[in-house]
């Protein structure tokens, strides 16, 4: 298992793919990539794959595809050339592989350059917080523009409800009588309840409401209590919201 690869020194897992390996072998020859003896490189390549297998490293099909191409080139170069056409074909396979290698080499160099850059940049720090800390502690910048005012909202609602009313009246639907619930009363009631440390889920609180109107009033009253600082809103891990009395 600890047997060293025979014909070349290499740390095994460093190659990112067959082209990376092939480029390494070719560059070892110290001649122009176009002039390199592919036959020789083929041997080394196959020997590397054998070592990988010995070390139980997975030889992926990509490595095998390139091996097949290399073997093809090698076997052709050993055979007598029966025709011009066959020789051209051989050249095509070889040329195509070398072009791929050269293309890959460009990006490998670029990757090395990126790595250096990243190294240099790792010494530069920017601030971590996203919201600007204004020295006078103003609330964060409001970026929403609605194109409307509260009065527009009111108008929209009035119009819609009027339209709805016409529609409902046309259907002759009965109107449900309503009971008056005072917001002030509800606030006082809740205030009494939310003594030191008392907590209650928002849902449960709203669930106590007997009518839609009571629900709305309870909701508004809760908001008021939050605004007054009587209660805090807390969200638990299940996204459940609780009202918790201050102190």
């Amino acid at each position: 298992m600890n047997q060293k690869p025979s014909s070349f020194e290499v740390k095994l897992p460093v190659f990112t793919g067959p082209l990376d390996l092939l480029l390494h072998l070719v560059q070892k020859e110290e001649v122009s990539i176009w002039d390199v003896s592919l036959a020789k490189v083929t041997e080394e390549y196959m020997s590397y794959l054998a070592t990988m297998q010995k070390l139980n490293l997975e030889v992926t099909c990509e490595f095998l595809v390139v091996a097949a191409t290399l073997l093809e080139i090698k076997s052709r170069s050993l055979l007598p050339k029966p025709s011009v056409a066959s020789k051209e074909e051989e050249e095509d396979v070889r040329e195509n592989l070398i072009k791929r290698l050269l293309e890959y080499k460009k990006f490998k160099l670029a990757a090395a350059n990126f790595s250096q850059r990243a190294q240099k940049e790792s010494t530069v720090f920017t601030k971590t917080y996203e919201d600007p800390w204004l020295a006078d502690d103003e609330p964060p910048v409001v970026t929403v523009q609605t194109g409307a005012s509260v009065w527009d909202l009111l108008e929209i609602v009035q119009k819609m409800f009027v339209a709805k009313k016409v529609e409902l009246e046309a259907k002759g639907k009965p109107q449900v009588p309503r009971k008056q619930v005072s917001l002030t009363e509800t606030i006082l009631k809740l205030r009494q309840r939310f003594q030191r440390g008392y907590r209650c889920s928002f849902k449960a609180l709203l669930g106590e409401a007997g009518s839609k109107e009571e629900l709305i009033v309870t909701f508004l009253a809760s908001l008021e209590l939050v605004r007054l600082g009587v209660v805090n809103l807390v969200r638990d891990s299940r996204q459940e919201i609780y009202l918790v009395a201050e102190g």
Partner: protein
Amino acid sequence: MNIQEAKAILEAVIFAAPEPITLKECAGILGVGEQTAELLIQQLEDDYRAQKRGLTLRRVAGGFQIATRPEYSEYVKLIGRAPKTQQLSQAALECLAIVAYRQPITRVEIDEIRGVKSESPLQTLLERELITEVGRKDTVGRPVLFGTTKKFLEVFGLKDLDELPPLEDDAEMLLTLEPTPGINEPK
């Protein structure tokens, strides 16, 4: 390390710290006593004050922090505003109005009032943080209830929801009509 350098290091460290950094931490980083660190920081503060700069060094929450100068806050607030001033669509405004006056309210109830599906405008309002989920309704399917946010109040310049102008009686009356599941279903 000379004084100039020590101050530069302090500036870099205070700037890069995710939270206000304490005197003790500053001293530890420089490898000097707290008194020396305090003197250096005072000098740095003086530098910040002397040069008319856009930033200030301030003492806050038991530590030091670099922040923008208050007098330039008007300009700082302009950042990022330009690309984000998309106005709300009519549909989104309708939904917002309904949520504002009828909260907490479910999507189905909003659909019912508008007579059309409101999923997409509601999504917009959620993204702009004008409305938010405030709970779940205790009915079949436990649908999400929507309400307006603090940001809604901010954007519309309201102290609280009570400041919403009152609806006319007509609308008020309709507002209390309770759409029950049975009634909502088309027959």
